[in-house]
């Protein structure tokens, strides 16, 4: 470094090499420096206001952690506030729904929309494991999106099914029927389904009535035992054999024969069909009363709207 500046008047920093190579002074713009110091000040201020600096273990009571900031902000508090806001918005609807019947909800387009959106979550949590995400059913579990209901598809009936659960029963006929009889009946069921009940064979009808199938499936084989004056029907949950829908998929001859031979929900029969809908309400035998009546109401509206509500 030279003792005196051989290039007077030049904006150099006074650093020289090899006599004539020198460092010129090109300072950053003044406001850059101002901005730099301002950011530093901001950083410190921020650290005072908000949680920021790690604290050495022996300095904090809880052992480790960080400075909490004088505003007392924390992300969990912000989250809780957010939840509160959402709850506030929902409360308006929930309060209305609490005082209404499922039918009244369905009459109000706005509330129906809210209910469908909110029940979608419930359906996902409690129903979709068996009935599928869109009510499309699963092998052994009924489709909720069609118009076929073993226990009725009105809002009231759906609520009843969710609240109390359903457990149908069908005797195993393997010891009652001969192989040929079972064949005839199975074929008859297939014919009935394919022809909307018009084309069942004489032999099939005969067996159907003789073996007592009509006790549950009804005289018409449509699952209806009696029709009440108010239009509602009496059923024990036995399938309508005149329609195209199979309670136990895939349906068809083999499937029908299996059901006839081994029945449904027969504890003593090894290959019997399992068909149990658990109770979700507060009634005895429920799954700890998992769902509130309002939730069941919402679910009923949801299931009703899946495609086959009556």
């Amino acid at each position, binding site marked *: 470094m030279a003792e005196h500046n051989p290039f007077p008047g030049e904006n150099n920093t006074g650093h020289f090499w090899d006599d004539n190579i020198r460092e010129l002074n090109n300072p950053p713009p*003044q406001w850059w420096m101002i901005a730099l110091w301002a950011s530093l000040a901001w950083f410190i201020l921020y650290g005072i206001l908000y949680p920021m600096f790690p604290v050495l273990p022996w300095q904090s009571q809880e052992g480790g952690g960080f400075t909490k900031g004088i505003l007392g902000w924390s992300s969990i508090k912000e989250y809780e506030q957010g939840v509160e806001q959402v709850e506030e918005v929902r409360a308006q609807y929930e309060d209305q729904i609490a005082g209404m019947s499922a039918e009244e909800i369905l009459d109000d387009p706005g509330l129906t929309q809210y209910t469908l959106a909110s029940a979608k979550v419930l359906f996902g949590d409690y129903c979709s494991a068996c009935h599928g995400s869109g009510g499309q059913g699963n092998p052994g579990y009924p489709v909720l999106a*069609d118009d076929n209901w073993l226990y009725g598809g009105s809002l009231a009936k759906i609520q009843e099914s969710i609240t109390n659960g359903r457990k149908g029963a069908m005797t195993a006929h393997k010891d009652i029927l001969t192989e040929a009889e079972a064949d005839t009946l199975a074929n008859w069921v297939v014919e009935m389904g394919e022809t909307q009940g018009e084309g069942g064979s004489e032999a099939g009808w005969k067996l159907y009535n003789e073996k007592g199938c009509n006790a549950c499936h009804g005289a018409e084989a449509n699952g209806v035992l009696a029709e009440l004056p108010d239009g509602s029907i009496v059923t024990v949950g036995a399938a309508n054999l005149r329609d195209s829908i199979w309670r136990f998929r895939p349906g068809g001859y083999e499937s029908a024969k299996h059901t006839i031979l081994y029945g449904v929900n027969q504890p003593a029969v090894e290959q019997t069909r399992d068909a149990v809908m658990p109770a979700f309400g507060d009634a005895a035998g429920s799954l700890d009363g998992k769902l509130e009546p309002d939730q069941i109401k919402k679910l009923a509206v949801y299931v009703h709207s899946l495609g086959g509500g009556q």
Partner: protein
Amino acid sequence: MDELYAEAHHWEVNTGGETIHAKRMPGKWRRIKWLAASVWLIFFLGPYVQWNGRQAVLFDIPNRQYHLFGVTVLPQDFWMLSLLLLFFAILLAVATALAGRVYCGYFCFQTVWTDVFTWIEERLEGSPPQRRKLDKAPVDARKLRIKVLKHAIWLVIGFLTGFSFVAWFYGAGPLWRDFFVGGANAAVYASVALFTFGTYLLAGWLREQVCFWLCPYARIQGVMLDKSTVVPAYDVTRGEPRGRVKKGEIEETRTTGDCVDCNQCVAVCPTGVDIRNGQQEGCITCGLCIDACNAVMDKVGRPRGLIRYASLDELEGESVKPMLLRPRVWVYTAILALALSGIIYGLSTLAAIELKVLHERAPLYVQLSDGSIQNKYTLKILNKSETDLKVGISAEAPVPLTLMGAEEPIAVKHGEVTPAIVFIKIGRSDLDGERLPVTFVATTQLPDGTQVSAERENAFFGPSR
């Protein structure tokens, strides 16, 4: 080596260490500058223009509706915004390719607001030498009075800027009603505060430093110039060697060039540039040095235009390509036209209703007890008109179908999307394929009696066969 240092030495970079007090001189470009600046009055007065009983242009963010005179644009139409942005970006490019940073020099809010701020400064503090003197003088009652007044006026302009900005979004009427009684929301106050302070800081203090160091446009535009771009330029061949007018020298026999080295061009430059060094990053092409030099040339009796709008080609004596022969101009113009026609198409075809159809996936189809197949659809009906509407839904397919769930017209509030669930049922014997095309039609009647409809194609699925 020494040459390098010599160049570095005289190449002084404006880092804002010293405030630039530019002289104001009247002239042609000065007038054009004021004229261009006055377009910004629209920014302040626009929110007060009414149209059909409503603020003509209102960007209603909370309700997600954007009113442009008779047209209401909803977020669904925002593809037009991207076209608009494209249009302006290309416009900037065209302008720059043809005439350099004209935007910077005449229209940029940074330039315009700074211009107004320095104009106020000159009214209060006097000419540049007076201002420099005042800056250096010790604080006394007079200086304090002048400075406080100046900063107060600056802040008021900043406030008006923020207030007017917010008025475009909040509505001028409601803003005047709510703002001063504390009735507006926090976002409004924060925006106005930010603008007030921002304007004050950028136009009052940072000024040309923004153009030098902050503005990205300045850098982008800098690389869009070429040798045929017309910018304010100093005619070196004519001006050099510069020299002062000597007493008694006869004009015909002088040995110096036309430049009288009076430094007026530097004195008037708002960014402190000496244009005689050639085109450079600091020049915002405001043309004020042209006015200054022309005035000097008039005084000394030499022809005007020593500094003038000229391209580098022209100054170097090369042939100047006519504008229409430059491919750039064509490419840019084509993009401009495309973007513009897209926007016009969009605005002219804004339908009153829009229909979207979502097919249910789980299950794709359902078999009903009578053997027919049912599909579920969620319709989303968007009402972009000014009133609530009743929308009727119908569906068509190549085979007979039953549409359920749309027996009653669906009520759709204006500016809202209303979902509706409908089902289509097709008899098993009619279903002649795994997949059938279905067209949904939403029809409604506007208050003025016109029928409008929206169509949407979708599909009907059945079991494989």
